[in-house]
């Protein structure tokens, strides 16, 4: 179980997260929605310390970590247990697909190289990229790179995976494939927090939807509640701008 309590984060005078709390149960899929600039990315980045929160508590199962003054060891420990899938993939440009997946296993999980490569190969197969395992990122399409990114995250065997708009840099025809792959991750029972604008994905896969705006969680609940009967005016206004509400899939 992952819990974030009272996270605050400013950039200079810009108060981005004013007081945000989120809890994620085991094998939950939590989708975060919100207008551009509402701090969704910042929130995810605070969870694995790519950004240092000004205050707040992170609970990962039994461990309680102060986000502001966690030590190096604690931070690295959390990062091993919390994977991140980036909007722009961020594959290691000097490593092949399989090395990208194996890197964390070798360096932080201290696996033998042969074992790490074996696990990495299994995960590449799982994301459907066996035939591209020796390709470098510059030789892969965006969709293929994101598959490697997801394989890299899953291979770490994390307690939760954070996805920051994993499909928004992709060509439209590739989006459905990656969303299907993320659903496959969800079916594995790994908890995840997904920032996305893909409403149909949220409706279908999430068991909790969080709407953020103005530095706060404005509303949260089951997808059917948030999408069909939003309580808050701001949620309603946001949703009406983005979605046709019927489930729509263009895969």
């Amino acid at each position, binding site marked *: 179980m992952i819990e974030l309590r009272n996270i605050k984060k400013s950039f200079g005078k810009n108060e981005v997260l004013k007081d945000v709390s989120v809890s994620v149960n085991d094998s939950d899929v939590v989708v975060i929605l919100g207008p551009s600039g509402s701090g969704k990315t910042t929130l995810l980045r605070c969870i*694995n*310390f*790519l950004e240092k929160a000004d205050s707040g508590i992170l609970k990962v199962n039994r461990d309680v970590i102060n986000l502001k003054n966690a030590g*190096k060891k604690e931070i*690295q*420990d959390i*990062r*091993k247990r919390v*994977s*991140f899938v*980036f909007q*722009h993939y*961020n*594959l*290691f*440009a*000097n*490593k092949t697909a399989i090395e990208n997946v194996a*890197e*964390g296993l070798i*360096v*932080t*999980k201290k696996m033998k190289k042969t074992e790490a490569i074996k696990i990495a190969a299994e995960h590449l197969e799982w994301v459907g990229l066996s035939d591209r395992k*020796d*390709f*470098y990122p*510059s*030789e892969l399409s965006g969709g293929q790179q994101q598959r490697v990114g997801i394989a*890299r995250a899953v291979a*770490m065997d994390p307690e939760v995976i954070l996805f920051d708009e994993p499909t928004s840099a992709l060509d439209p025809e590739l989006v459905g494939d990656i969303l299907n792959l993320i659903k496959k991750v969800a079916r594995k029972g790994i908890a995840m927090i997904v920032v996305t604008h893909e409403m149909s994905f949220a409706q279908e896969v999430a068991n909790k939807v969080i709407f953020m705006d103005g530095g706060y969680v404005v509303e949260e609940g089951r997808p059917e509640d948030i999408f069909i009967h939003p309580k808050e005016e701001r949620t309603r206004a946001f949703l009406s701008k983005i979605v046709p509400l019927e489930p729509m899939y263009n895969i």
Partner: protein
Amino acid sequence: MGQIFDIRLIPEYTVKLLSGIPTTLLLFILVTVLSLILGMAFALIKIQNIPFLYQIVAILISYARSVPGIVQLFVVFYGMPILIEEFTGVNATLWDPLLFVVIAYTFNTSVFFCEAMRTAIESLDKGQFEAGFSVGMSYPQVFIRIILPQAVRISLPTLEINACTMMKETALAYTIGVTTDIMGRATILGGRSYHLLEADISASILFLILNFILVIVFSRINKKFFTFKRKESVAV
């Protein structure tokens, strides 16, 4: 009273000067390796903005950039023994001048390597660091395994130019009494026979060849270690 220019001496001198290659190459390799290490350290100091050290590196950089190489060499050759004597009481004036050549050129070259690598590192997407952190790697681990190889790849052309420049500049070593490198030998040879120009032309030939080899070596290194593409796709 110079003799008449004798072109037939050139092949003979060129062969004789071959004996200077080991020293020139040794100088080149030592300075390159040390400069890579020191340059990397300087680059890190600048990137991390480490107080105090940052200012020192900044001063070194503007010194190395603005002061002529031969002046730098003299300052090290005549100045360092005084400092060494002052602080340790050891008399360094009789040490092999090659040592001071290595020190002077390492200092100078590492400054240029530093700038090449610093700009390369800063040009990398910060997502490369973040991806490493996100799988739990420490800063040094990310730096060595992910950032450095990419930075070297980007800076390789600049490193190559600086290394080539350094190799030919080591010819100045004869001014502080080095006699075993190509230029040292040429000076002696030409001085004895008064056929200085022929000796210089022979030295030119050897430097041309060395430079040519160096360019090939760099391109091999680049292809083999720093292309980050599959062999078959590079060949196409």
